[in-house]
C-alpha cells in the first residue's frame, strides 16, 4: 500500500514523470519559438544537459543573504508545483487524490511558487533581485484575478468545486465546453503572466534587471528553480487542458487516453509559444492597466454568461 503510493507520488505520474515531461515541454517550447523565428533551435537533449550542468556547479550564497531562506525557498517552490500536479486529472477523470474543492487547492498551490520567488529574491539582498521580487508580487495582483475567474467560471457551469466532477459533467454534456472559450482566452493570457513569459516576463526582464529574482542563484539551487519553472508550465497547461478541454478522459486508463492528454498539453504549449513570439514586453504599469481594463471585464462576462446558462440549461 505504502509502496504503491510512493511509486505513484515519486515515479509515475508523480515527481519523475512530471520532471521528464517538464523537460520535454521546455524543449518543445524552445524549438517552436526558434522555428517561428526562422532558426534551428536546440536539440532534444538540451534541457536535460542544462539541468545536469547546473547540478554539477557550485552554489554561491551571497554573504549578506539569509542563508536558510535563500536555500529553502527553491525547495518550497518545487514541492508546491509537484503537489499541484498530483491533484490534476490527467487522462482519467479522477486524479490521484481528488476530493471536493480540489480546484481551489490547485490554484492556491500554484500561487506558492510566486511567493517563493518573492521571498527568495528579497532575501538575496541584491538590488536587482529585490527589484525583481517586488515586480513579481506586483504582477501577481494583475493576473491572479482573471486567472481565477476564468477557471472558476467553468466550475460554476458544472455546479461543483471538484475537478473530477467537472470532468464527469462535461463528459456527460459533450458540447458545453464551447461556452467556455472566452474564459479559455482569458486564462491563457493570465497564464502567460503566471509563467512570466513575454509579454509579461517583467520580473525576469533580462535587459533591465539582469535576471530579476534569479540573479544571485547558481548551481543546484538554480537547477531546482529552473525545474520548478518547467513543471509550473506543465501544471498550468494540464490544468487548462483538464478544465477547458475535458474530452478523451472517459476512455479509461488506456494508452490512447495518455496520448490524447499529451497532445492536449502540447497544443496549449504551442499556443503559449506563439504568444511569446509575436509581442514585445510590457512595462509593469502598462501590464496592470491591460489586465484590469481588458482581461477582468472579459472574465466577468464569462462568469455572468455561465451563471445565466446554468440557470437556463439545468432547471
Amino acid at each position, binding site marked *: 500500500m505504502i509502496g504503491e503510493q510512493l511509486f505513484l507520488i515519486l515515479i509515475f505520474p508523480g515527481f519523475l514523470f512530471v520532471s521528464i515531461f517538464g523537460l520535454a515541454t521546455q524543449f518543445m517550447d524552445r524549438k517552436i519559438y526558434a522555428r517561428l523565428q526562422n532558426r534551428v533551435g536546440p536539440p532534444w537533449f538540451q534541457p536535460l544537459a542544462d539541468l545536469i550542468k547546473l547540478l554539477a556547479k557550485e552554489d554561491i550564497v551571497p554573504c549578506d543573504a539569509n542563508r536558510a531562506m535563500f536555500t529553502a525557498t527553491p525547495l518550497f517552490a518545487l514541492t508546491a508545483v509537484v503537489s499541484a500536479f498530483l491533484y490534476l486529472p490527467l487522462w482519467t477523470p479522477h486524479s490521484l487524490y481528488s476530493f471536493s474543492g480540489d480546484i481551489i487547492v490547485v490554484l492556491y498551490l500554484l500561487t506558492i511558487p510566486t511567493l517563493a520567488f518573492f521571498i527568495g529574491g528579497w532575501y538575496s539582498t541584491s538590488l536587482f533581485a529585490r527589484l525583481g521580487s517586488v515586480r513579481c508580487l506586483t504582477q501577481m495582483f494583475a493576473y491572479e484575478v482573471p486567472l481565477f475567474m476564468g477557471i472558476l467560471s467553468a466550475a460554476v457551469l458544472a455546479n461543483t468545486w471538484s475537478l473530477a466532477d467537472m470532468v464527469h459533467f462535461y463528459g456527460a454534456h459533450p458540447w458545453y465546453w464551447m461556452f467556455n472559450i472566452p474564459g479559455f482566452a482569458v486564462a491563457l493570457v493570465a497564464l502567460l503572466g503566471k509563467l512570466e513569459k513575454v*509579454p509579461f516576463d517583467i520580473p525576469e526582464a533580462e535587459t*533591465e534587471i539582469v535576471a530579476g529574482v534569479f540573479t544571485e542563484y547558481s548551481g543546484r539551487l538554480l537547477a531546482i528553480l529552473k525545474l520548478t519553472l518547467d513543471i509550473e508550465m506543465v501544471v498550468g497547461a494540464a490544468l487548462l487542458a483538464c478544465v477547458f478541454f475535458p474530452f478523451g478522459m472517459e476512455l479509461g486508463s488506456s494508452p490512447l487516453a495518455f496520448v490524447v492528454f499529451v497532445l492536449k498539453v502540447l497544443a496549449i504549449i504551442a499556443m503559449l509559444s506563439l504568444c511569446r513570439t509575436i509581442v514585445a514586453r510590457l*512595462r509593469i504599469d502598462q501590464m496592470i492597466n491591460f489586465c484590469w481594463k481588458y482581461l477582468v471585464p472579459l472574465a466577468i462576462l464569462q462568469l455572468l454568461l455561465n451563471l445565466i446558462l446554468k440557470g437556463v440549461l439545468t432547471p
Partner: protein
Amino acid sequence: MPDKNKFKIPIGPQHPALKEPEGFSLALKGEKIMGVDIRLGYNHRGIEKACEERTYIQDLYLIERVCGICSHSHSTCFVQAVEEIAGLDIPKRARYIRTLIGELERVHSHLLWLGVAGHEIGFDTLLMYTWRDREVVMDILAALTGNRVNYGINTIGGVRRDITPDQCKDVLAAMDILEERTKYYIEVGTQETTIVKRLSGVGVLSKEAALKLDAVGPTARASGVDYDVRRDDPYAAYGELSFDVITDDHCDVYGRTVVRLKELMESYKIIRQAVKNMPDGPVTVRAPRKIPAGEALGRYEAPRGEDVHFVKSNGTEKPERVKVRAPTLANVQAVKHMLKDRFLADMPIVVAAIDPCFSCTDRAISLRHTDKNKKEIIDWPTLRTYGISWYKSQGIDFAGLNKQLLERIKQ
C-alpha cells in the same frame, strides 16, 4: 534622514542591456528614476595617441577600427581631412564608390539598430528577422570590398578597388529585396501595439532641449531639428544626388524609430542613383607619402550622427595630432535629460535609441588628483615620467617587466 525608498542601482559597466561597457548609476525611488550619473571611459584604447606614431597609410586602418559598425564613416572622414591638407582632388568615380559604400553601411547599421531595439524591449523575433535580412547587405559588402566589417576601401587619394558591372547588378537586386523587407518593418513598427506602447512617450527630447544639448543625427532629427551634413555641407558625391532629409515631430523613441526606418528607404534611393550614375574613370590619384603642414576638419554623416575628425600635419609621414569626435559623445549628454522622471524599464530602450557606440566615444579621460584640490593640465611626457616615478615609489619597476615582455614576444 535618508529616504528608505531611494537606492542607487548600477547599470553597467557590465549589464545585459548594454552592448558595450559604460557606467550609468541610477538613483531610483521604487521604479521611478530620480537621477542619472554617467561615467564613460571604459573603452578608451589610446587611439589618438597611437595615430601620432604611425604613418598616414597605417593610420587609415587604425582609424577604421575605432568602431565596427561605422568604420567606413571614420575612415572616410579621416581621409577627407588628409586629402584636404594635401590638396588632392580625387576622381569622381572614387567619390561615387565612397558614397555607395557609405550608404550600404548606413543600411546595415540601421537594420542592426532595429534588431537591438527589439531586443531591449523584449521582442526577440524582430531581432532575429532584421539580423537575418542584414546578412544580404553584409554579403554585398563582402563581395564589393573584401570584408564584412572594416571594409578598408579607402586610401589616400581615392579608393582601392573598383566595381564591376556584375557587382552593380547584384547591388540593385539586393536593394529590391531589402526595400520590400523594410516596408514590412515599417508596417510592424508603426502598427504593432506593444511596440508603439513601449516606444511612445519615452525618452522625450523637445526641439529646444535637442538644440541646447547638441544632439546630432537621428536623435536630433526626431525632435524636428532639420540638419544633415550630407545636405548642408556636401562631401563625396552627395552634392550631385537627390534625397530627402527625414525629420519627425514625435520627439521620443518612437520618432527615432520612424526616422531611422524612413532613412533606410532614402538610402535605397541614394544607392540606386549612385549605381546608375557612376561615372567612368580612374579610382585613385597618386598621393604623396609626406603630407605638407596644415590642419583640416573632416565632417561626415555617420549612421549615428555627425562625425568630426581634426587632423594636423607637420610635413612628415606621421600626423602630429588626430582628434576624433564621434556622434555618440554629443548624444550621451541628452540621455540624462531624457531619463528624468521615467521608469527603470525605459532605461535600456532610451539608451539604445541614441544608438550608442561607446567604442567611438571614449577618446579622452580626465584624471583626478586625490591629494590636491586644484586642476592642472599636463602634457604627455610629464604624465609619463610622473607615472614611472609613482610606480617606483610603490616598489614596481617597469624596466624589468618590459624586458620580459619583449623576450616573450620574440619567441
